[in-house]
């Protein structure tokens, strides 16, 4: 990483990443990429989020799905940890709670592969700015 030497430098980076620069780095077809975020704050990790993230990472690769799995902070649904957010290309993000490896498998097979919702959806209950 180079130094940001001016406000303009910063704005450029911001613009690049808003356009999904990092996604382009990870995939040749960023528009077809499935994005999975795993809530990895303390409570998530305490409930097994790490294992879920590892599972998703390896399974998605094994099953040849063009996906990027990243960690993120607390989504706020402590009662339903571990929680993950899945964004299918062109669709609204969906949050699943109480994710076990079985549930993760079901999410991959049904939701990610076919778009079929499965049980365990946590409706987003907040507005963000």
């Amino acid at each position, binding site marked *: 990483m180079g130094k940001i030497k001016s406000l303009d430098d910063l704005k450029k980076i911001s613009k690049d990443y808003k356009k999904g620069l990092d996604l382009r780095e990870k995939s040749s077809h960023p528009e077809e990429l499935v994005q999975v975020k795993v809530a990895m*704050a*303390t*409570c998530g990790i*305490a*409930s097994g989020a790490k294992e879920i993230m590892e599972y998703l990472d390896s399974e998605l690769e094994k099953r040849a799905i063009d996906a990027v799995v990243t960690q993120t902070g607390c989504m706020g*649904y*402590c009662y339903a*940890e571990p929680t993950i957010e899945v964004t299918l290309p062109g669709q609204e993000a969906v949050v699943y709670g109480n994710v076990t490896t079985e549930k993760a498998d079901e999410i991959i097979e049904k939701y990610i592969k076919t778009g079929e919702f499965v049980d365990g959806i946590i409706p987003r209950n907040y507005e963000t700015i």
Partner: protein
Amino acid sequence: MSSIKIKLKKQDIDKIKEITASFNNEEHELINVLHKCQQHFGYLPAEVQEVISDEMDIPTAKIYGIVTFYSFFTMTPKGKNPISICMGTACYVRGGEKVLDEFKKELGIEAGQTTKDGKFSISSLRCVGACGLAPVVLIGEKTYGRVAPDDVKEILAEYK
């Protein structure tokens, strides 16, 4: 008054010196130094505090005053499997105290003590922030959520 003699292994003395030197022996870094030393030794025995005192030129009494002020610092070695029971409010209202009592009963020790075989020690801590899982128990790095007193035997069995 009498002159005090402290015995420690050379590598231990060197380690403490290395730690204090890494903070330039600056007095306001004392708490960071104690953290590092506890990380290394697992606890802060009197000997370690004496060497820190010597290196940083801070009276031992003052260091001891600090070690006993902060509940994170301990002068007794923890068990191989340190058990921490969350006593935050969320865990309390969901029965954390009963879980603590059950651990005490099962192991025959009080909070702050270590079993004779050195396998377990119990401590209560304030809110690990996993209130969604209340009551929460930590054993080493592993977290157990929604623990009921009935689960205690089973949990302990994993470590026996």
